């Protein structure tokens, strides 16, 4: 049977959103498509290798329980989200109640088994591959960097906003990218006060304005300095943003608040980068114990994304927002001797936003260790990819960012039916 989008919605979304008479997102979609210039993409890096099987649980797969004797989440605890197109029932981690709400509103999509052939089990290589969007060569610019470079100049220095201290490979570009790990410390300080400080700042702006054409490397730094000086006031305005909800008081929560603030203050940023770590759960993963390692990860994810979603909804900015999460790899199917999981292969991606067609994309793996099981690899130990992660990127580039995925990704990775946005 061919799964059309309509049929998919019926099976995947409408089946459990019984009160929804007409999908509200259809009108929102139309609005969002009419205003592409204000659209923002937020890329969320779940750093360390997220265990997709604990986030989106195949709670009727008996092998899930037999292969994860201490880590499996009891079927009665998962938050059921219906079945995927293969008929497999799935449930969210019990701490993802906020995401379940968003899913019910049709604004959250899970893309199952996203990955690539010969998945790297190295954090470094794996992260580079996802960020370069190239499994065979991670040199040069990142996938978002290449997208930014494809935009028509001149570009505003806040066209991309990285909330981490270091610039991730994904954002490496010929275009200047703003790194703003903290909006409050993104300010110009001075050894003097009062009017002397003002004179210093004026001098610094003038000094940064000289971009010598015959010294290209000096010019590069001068351009960066210029961008820093030019963005100070607008970033300060973002720092003054009073959100409509309370964000978690964590680095992750504050980064999301800065993103919402930037959108609220109209910085015109197209691409945001947010990272939250701790997903490398080799030992004592504790998926259910109160304050267990994975429980805390899910609480942080749920609280952060729920706050962002509700804040943007209150600001009527949801239709301009797409959040996409990734992780460098998933984790091994069987748990290890330390009640944790080792590096695996494919995992689940999350898409959230006003333009998202919610639902379950792709199919869950069968966790049967039988060597003939085509949904696993590595002798039945790791989840094999079904959707090339570049197909997800392609959809985002083409349908959300109005770019050309073929040139940005260096090939045609478009995948029919992968129409989550």
């Amino acid at each position: 049977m061919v799964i059309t989008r309509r049929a998919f919605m019926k099976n995947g979304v409408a089946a459990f959103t019984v009160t929804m008479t007409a999908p509200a997102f259809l009108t929102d979609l139309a609005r969002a498509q009419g205003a592409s210039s204000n659209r923002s993409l937020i890329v969320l890096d779940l750093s360390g290798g997220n265990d997709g099987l604990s986030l989106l649980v195949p709670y009727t797969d008996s092998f899930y329980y037999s292969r994860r004797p201490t880590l499996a989440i009891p079927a009665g605890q998962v938050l059921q989200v219906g079945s995927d197109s293969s008929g497999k029932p799935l449930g969210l981690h019990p701490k993802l109640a906020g995401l379940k709400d968003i899913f019910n509103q049709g604004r959250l999509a899970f893309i199952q088994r996203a990955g690539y052939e010969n998945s790297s089990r190295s954090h470094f290589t794996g992260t580079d591959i996802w960020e370069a969007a190239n499994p065979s060569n991670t040199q040069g610019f990142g996938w978002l960097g290449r997208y930014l470079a494809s935009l028509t100049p001149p570009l505003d220095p806040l066209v991309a906003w990285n909330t981490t201290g270091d610039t991730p490979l994904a954002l490496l570009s010929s275009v200047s990218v703003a790194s703003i790990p903290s909006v409050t410390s993104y300010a110009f300080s001075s050894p003097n006060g009062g009017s002397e400080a003002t004179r210093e700042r004026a001098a610094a702006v003038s000094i940064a304005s000289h971009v010598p054409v015959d010294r290209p490397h000096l010019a590069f730094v001068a351009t960066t300095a210029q961008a820093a000086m030019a963005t100070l006031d607008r970033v300060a305005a973002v720092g003054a943003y009073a959100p409509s909800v309370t964000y978690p008081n964590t680095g992750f929560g504050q980064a999301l608040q800065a993103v919402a603030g930037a959108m609220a203050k109209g910085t015109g940023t197209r691409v945001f980068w947010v990272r939250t770590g701790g997903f490398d759960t080799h030992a004592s993963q504790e998926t259910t114990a109160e304050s267990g390692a994975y429980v805390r990860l899910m609480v942080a994810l749920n609280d952060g994304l729920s706050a962002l979603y509700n804040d943007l909804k209150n600001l009527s900015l949801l239709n301009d927002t797409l959040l996409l999460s990734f992780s460098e790899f998933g984790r091994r199917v069987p748990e290890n001797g330390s009640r944790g999981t080792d590096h695996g292969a494919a995992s689940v991606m999350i898409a959230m936003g006003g333009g998202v067609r919610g639902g379950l994309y792709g199919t869950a793996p069968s966790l049967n260790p039988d060597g003939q099981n085509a949904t696993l690899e590595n002798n039945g130990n790791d989840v094999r990819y079904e959707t090339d992660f570049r197909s997800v990127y392609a959809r985002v580039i083409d349908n959300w960012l109005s770019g050309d995925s073929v040139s940005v990704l260096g090939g045609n990775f478009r995948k029919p039916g992968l129409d989550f946005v």
Partner: protein
Amino acid sequence: MANGDRLVQHLLRRAGFGASSDEWAAYSALSYPQAVDRLINYAAIADSVDSNIGRAGYIGTTSRGAFSPNTVIDDARQRWLFRMIHTDRPLQERMTLFWHNYFATGFSKVAGKVKGENATRLMAAKASEDPTRQRGQIELFRDSALGSLRDLLVAVAKDPAMLIWLDGDTNTKAKPQENFGRELMELFSRGVGFYTEDDVYAAARVFTGWNLSVTGDPGDPSASFAFVYNANQHEVSAKTFSFPIYGDGGRTIPARPAASGMQDGIDLITALSMHQETARRLATKLYSFFVSETVAADPAFIDTLATVYLQNGTAILPVLQRLFLSPQFQDEAIFLTRYSWPVEFVVRAIKETGWTGFTTGAVLSPLVNMGQHLFDPPDVAGWNLGQGWFSTGAMLTRMNFGATLAENQKFNLARSAAVARTSARAVLDYLLTRLTPDLEPAVYADLLAYASAGITWTGTDAQLQTKAPGLVHLILGSSEYQFI
């Protein structure tokens, strides 16, 4: 300034971290070859810098509680910064930094396994500070800064922090661990493209049994750590590589009894260290570090350095001697053209501006925001160098560090600039003899305009206390000053 002086200044910026006025006075009396000799043959100079920590006349340190660089990683960071600022062996510290980036090992992962206190010991303790006299990784780099790469590779393969960082501690015959074997070839020797996946599997098997022995609870400060060769975890079969291992061209490490299986690893490392690919890769890295990362090296020059390396049994000292005395290094066109690493920027700024009343503790969080958290590189490939250091946030942090330092040194700067109080231009020119950027004329004009902006110059102490730090801040924050 005479050309010879500019050359020695260039040497001190690249082979050291710039020069304080005292250092400059000492080095300016030397010819260029003498200065090279003094930097390279540092073994003749006493290594007593650490005994000055806490003394008047030196930069201070800031700790919660007693300063404890062998158990608290931020204190270890401060001790290293102190060394960079005050050492009489600047090339040794610079090469220690080079190796730290080359073998980039992250404190966070080590701490995840053995807790922060033990991880600090494994990263940074001196042998004398460890109960079992196990020296921390940075001490290994310091001791081996100009020694042979072959010996350093063997030591690194046995280094406890490295065994944790690249999972050698879990490399057993039932489950050969590929992490170290891969990086040994990809990052530490031949380089990407010069080995195959089969080589990785073979290298993993070579190092089976190269494990970590932990006495006591690994997270408890009483624990001790040491390399151990576990013969019963060594996979004994022959290992064949795509490149020669032995002088006769043989590519196969023979099957050996487990008891002597440790020789597999020694054979592999010895072979890798003597390969032409390794020699050229290391020569290229040293060229980028010391000469230029923006002008590609002349292949003949890389060949020369690689040959010196191979002819001297993989020793680094003769390679650097050849490098510093080369016309390529002495070419004026490369002066002040290398993007400074955050620690290079910070240490040079302190040495050139002054430090009395300043503390290394004030450097820690700016360094993180500039993108260089010492002892915690982002991954095994090290930091993203060159333009990678210069995001807007990092650039602002550099400017703001300049403000912090200038404000702290306000009175020192005003006092020393008093010799030039006759005019705003004289003060600026005086400061530019201490801070040494290659300024664009338009930038010089902006600085000059600022020096008398808002005032009528009279050269009073109050004016000096405002304008000297203001100028130093603007100079340290200029684009030109970001280059060494």
